C-alpha cells in the first residue's frame, strides 16, 4: 500500500477530530452540522473530475499546450489554471444548500457561520482524500514511506480550516439574501485566490520556492481574523447560546457624559 494512504488516514482522523470537534463544541453541540460535514466529502472529487480537469484539457487542446503544465507554459494559461480553483470550488462547496433540510440550518448569523464551516471542512477532508489518491498514482511518490509525508499532513490540516472559513464567508452572505450572497461568494473566491497566490507566483517565476509559504501564512492569519470577526458578530445575536445562560448579579450605570444628567 502506498505510504501516502497511511498518512492520509492519520490526516483525516486528526482534521475530522480537530475541526469537527471545533464546529460541534463551539456551535453548542449541534449534530446537524456534522451531517453537513459528511455532505461536503464527495464535492472535491466531483469538481476536479467533472469541471476543472475537463476544462483544463479542453482549453489546453484548443490552445495547443499539451500537459504536463508548469513554469514553461504560457502565463495566460497558468493564470487560467490558477483561477479554476477559486471560481469553481467555492460555488461547488455550497451545493448541499440546494437541499431544503440543509438550508433550514441557516437560522441566524451563528448558524450560517457553523453551517459554512461544516461544509468547507467536509470539502477539505474530501480534497485531502482526492489528493492522496493522486499522489499514490504518481510513481515518484508511490513507494515513499508514510512518515515522509508530514508536509501533506500539516498543509491539509490547515487547509481544512481555511476551506471552512471561506465557505462560512459565502454562507454568511447567502443567509442575508441574493446581493450579499453573491458578494459573499465573490469574497470567498478572492480569499481562495489569496491562499493559492504563493504557488501561482512561484509558477510565474516571481518568487522562489522557499517564499511560497509566506503568502499562505499571511492568508492563514487573515482568515483567523475573519473567523473571529464572524464569531464575534454571531455572539452578539439575541439568543446566542452563550448569552442565553447569562446571569447579571450587579450592574452600575456609568454616565460617560456628565451632560446626560441634565
Amino acid at each position, binding site marked *: 500500500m502506498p505510504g501516502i494512504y497511511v498518512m492520509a488516514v492519520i490526516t483525516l482522523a486528526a482534521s475530522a477530530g480537530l475541526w469537527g470537534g471545533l464546529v460541534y463544541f*463551539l456551535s453548542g453541540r449541534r449534530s446537524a452540522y456534522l451531517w453537513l460535514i459528511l455532505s461536503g466529502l464527495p464535492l472535491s472529487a466531483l469538481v476536479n473530475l467533472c469541471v476543472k480537469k475537463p476544462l483544463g484539457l479542453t482549453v489546453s487542446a484548443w490552445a495547443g499546450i499539451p500537459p504536463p503544465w508548469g513554469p514553461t507554459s504560457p502565463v495566460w494559461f497558468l493564470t487560467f489554471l490558477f483561477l479554476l480553483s477559486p471560481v469553481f470550488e467555492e460555488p461547488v462547496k455550497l451545493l448541499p444548500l440546494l437541499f431544503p433540510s440543509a438550508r433550514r440550518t441557516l437560522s441566524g448569523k451563528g448558524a450560517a457561520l457553523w453551517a459554512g464551516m461544516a461544509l468547507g471542512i467536509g470539502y477539505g477532508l474530501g480534497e485531502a482524500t482526492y489528493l492522496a489518491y493522486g499522489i499514490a498514482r504518481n510513481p515518484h511518490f508511490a513507494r515513499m514511506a508514510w512518515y515522509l509525508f508530514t508536509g501533506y499532513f500539516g498543509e491539509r490540516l490547515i487547509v481544512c480550516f481555511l476551506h471552512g472559513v471561506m465557505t462560512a464567508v459565502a454562507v454568511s452572505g447567502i443567509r442575508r439574501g441574493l446581493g450579499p450572497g453573491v458578494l459573499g461568494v465573490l469574497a470567498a473566491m478572492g480569499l481562495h485566490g489569496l491562499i493559492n497566490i504563493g504557488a501561482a507566483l512561484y509558477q510565474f517565476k516571481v518568487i522562489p520556492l522557499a517564499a511560497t509559504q509566506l503568502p499562505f501564512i499571511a492568508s492563514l492569519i487573515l482568515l483567523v481574523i475573519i473567523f473571529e470577526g464572524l464569531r464575534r458578530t454571531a455572539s452578539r445575536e439575541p439568543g446566542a*447560546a452563550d448569552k442565553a445562560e447569562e446571569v*447579571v*448579579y450587579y*450592574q452600575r450605570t456609568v454616565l460617560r457624559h456628565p451632560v446626560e444628567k441634565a
Partner: protein
Amino acid sequence: MNDALPSQTASRIFKPRPSSGWLSLVLLPIPFIALGLWFLLLGDPRMPLLVRLFNGIVCTGIGLPLLILAFWFPGMRYVLGPGELILRYGPVLTYRIPLSGIIRVRRRNLAISLWSSMRLPGLALFKVPYSDVGTVRMCATSASRHILLIETEDAVYGLTPADEEGFVAELKSRMGV
C-alpha cells in the same frame, strides 16, 4: 471615619471550583520534558553536542514552567479584603480589583477564540482573548463554562468561585449594594 462593619475589615478567602486543570498542567509537559531529557542525557551520539544541548534546553524549557504552574494550582484563591478583591495564583499572578471600581458582575459562558493564550482544560490564567467579550484577565478553573465576570472601567476579570452565591453576596455586601 471608617463606616465599614468589623466583618468587612477582615479578609475572606474563597476557593475556586474544583477542576482537572492540575492534570492538564502535569500531562502536557511530560512529552516535552521526556524529549528534553532524552536529548540531554541519551540522545543520538552522532548529533553535535551543541544541537543536543539546544534541543534539550528548549524542550525542557517549554515543559518545566507548566509543571511549576501545576505546583501552585491548589493555591489559587480569591481574597475579599477591605476595599479590594484579590485574585491570586501562586507568586506569578495577582490581580487587585478595587471594589469601588466594579461596574458589573455577571456569570456567563464565554466563546473561546483561536488566538493563543494560557488556556487548558480546567484552567485559564492571565489575559485570554474571547470572541464575544474581548480580552479577560483570567484566574479560573474553567476556560469558558460558567465564568463570573467582574468588570471595571479598565478591565474585565474572570473567576470561578466554588461557592458562587456566597462569593457574590459577600462581594455585594462589601460594595454596599
